[in-house]
């Protein structure tokens, strides 16, 4: 039987809430948590390590669900800077918009943003899968190393600047590509991977509508010949 814990952040501090979440053991039955009155406070549900589901009823502040492992965090509102920052595994689902640096440096897991993501979405991503159902701001996937960034709307300026091996899929327009980021051929394996990812994110867009972008692999190593142009 599912057992729901409700925590009201108007009465409890974030620190106390996070402490309780950190003390959970995997076999415990407190698997469903509802967080009321988040009112934009920072670091809600950070550092979770067990497969619980946490639903946040409102707008969350910085670093919501940062460093997540195993847990599913659902935000019924917007999130500020750095949602799912450094996530290792699990799912973070934002029903509103996400501010800058969504999914920054994250190693794994799935981040779904139902609305728009602002600047630097997926900056330095290292294996996370990010699906933005709206548009993403400038400098998205800056120095992205691996993982997938799917943007169902448009991408802003300098998409994929200094990108390594992350794969970028954009359905709408791209305002400009960053240095060393180019459009690449969409091969069957990419369509297949994209289809799986869209399905996991609950997105009905068709993989054929997307274009793929990635690294031209010319910036991997510092070249002294180019020093004057940096």
């Amino acid at each position, binding site marked *: 039987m599912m057992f729901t814990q409700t925590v009201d952040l108007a009465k409890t501090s974030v620190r106390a809430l996070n402490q309780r979440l950190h003390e959970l053991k995997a076999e415990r039955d407190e698997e469903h948590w509802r967080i009321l009155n988040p009112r934009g406070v920072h670091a809600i549900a950070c550092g979770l390590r067990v497969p619980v589901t946490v639903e946040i009823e409102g707008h969350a502040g910085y670093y919501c669900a940062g460093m997540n492992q195993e847990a599913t965090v659902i935000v019924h509102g917007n999130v500020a*800077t750095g949602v799912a920052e450094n996530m290792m595994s699990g799912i973070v689902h934002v029903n509103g918009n996400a501010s*800058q640096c969504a999914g920054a440096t994250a190693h794994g897991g799935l981040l779904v943003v139902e609305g728009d993501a602002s600047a630097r979405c997926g900056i330095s991503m290292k294996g996370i899968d990010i699906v933005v159902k709206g548009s993403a701001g*400038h400098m998205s996937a800056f120095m992205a190393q691996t993982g997938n960034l799917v943007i169902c709307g448009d991408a802003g*300026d300098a998409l994929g600047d200094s990108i390594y091996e992350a794969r970028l899929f954009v359905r709408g327009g791209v305002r*400009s590509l*960053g240095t060393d980021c180019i459009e690449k051929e969409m091969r069957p394996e990419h369509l297949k991977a994209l289809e799986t990812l869209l399905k996991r994110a609950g997105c009905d867009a068709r993989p054929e509508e997307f274009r793929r972008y990635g690294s031209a692999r010319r910036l991997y190593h510092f070249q002294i010949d180019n020093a004057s142009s940096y």
Partner: protein
Amino acid sequence: MFADRYTAPKQSTVNVLSRFKGLILLQLEAGLRCAEPDSIFCLRYESFMIRNISMCGIVGLFLKQSFLEPELGALFSEMLICMSSRGPDSAGFAVYGAPAPSGKLKVILQHSDPDFDWSAIGFALEKRFRDKPSVEVNSTHARLLVKTDAQSIRSFLDEYFPEVRIMSVGRRIEIMKETGSPESVVERFSLQRIAGSHAIGHTRMATESAVTTEGSHPFSTGVDLCLVHNGSLSNHNRLRQRLCREGIEFHTENDTEVAAGYFAWQMANGATLKEALEAGLKDLDGFYTFTVGTEDGFAVLRDPIACKPAVLAETDDYVAMASEYRSLANLPGIEGARIWEPEPAVVYNWSRVERGEVASKNGDRIGVSDFAPSSETPEASSDKRAFRSNGVTA
């Protein structure tokens, strides 16, 4: 091949970025080799982010409906105190209250001694200008109502009372600022009880100059104009020298004062507020979210790479701006508000204009310019007044 990208950047975002990245790569050249692809980059990235998201808080509240005006101070106090964690060392605010009686100006002065005898200034002004000001003291600040013009008052005070600082001069503006926690500053001036149509404020974590009253924000940039800034400017010393040669006076080593002086200089040379802010996109190098207060409204501008945070919320009753959503969470009706992040390098402004005067005053009225309203910030109107809100890509 990518050298071409950098020598001919298509737009400002890429331009600023290439400078930032150039810095990293030059460090690599200095001997730090990239063994792990992410090691040095992520260190730089993390320090970049920590430095740029957590320092200084700014807030603004612009009421569209006059019934809320008695509540302005109470609503705004809560917004300001909420930003204490971003700026614990000093705080300040500009409130636009009831206008001074016809032909008079409000002059807000500060003296570090709360027991300073303000009547001495009143007496001296009476003697010099035959202008007996009414004086009202609020902690370390005093409000004078004078008939004399702003420039004469400034010169006179600079000469005879150099230890007195001029916080603001205008028909409606009143600036108060002090060192100490935002809560203590709010208490000191009883901000909760101050009424008005709009207010902007700042909580400071000093980085570019000392923790002093004069280094606190807002900085007044001219009659009824003021500026608060979240960020840091890197070319303020050079720009200060340039503006000094143009006759602009500075009283601190602070970078924001230079930006304030720059905008005042642009506007003294005929630029509208929008034009001055757009010129700033080219001439001011660094990170910033600016909020500018005008006699009848306020404007918001973020730098082209949007390093510094900002959130806007709009309802039928008000427009509110803050560094973080936390500051907006207690406003009435916030649940139904339209909430969004202002775009980088876009000037947003709102102002109250008497109905029927919008069209004729567009060209010359501060705070309302001749650009088209964007779909992002649609026009709203009410019974007695019309409001314009505009966003335009620079």
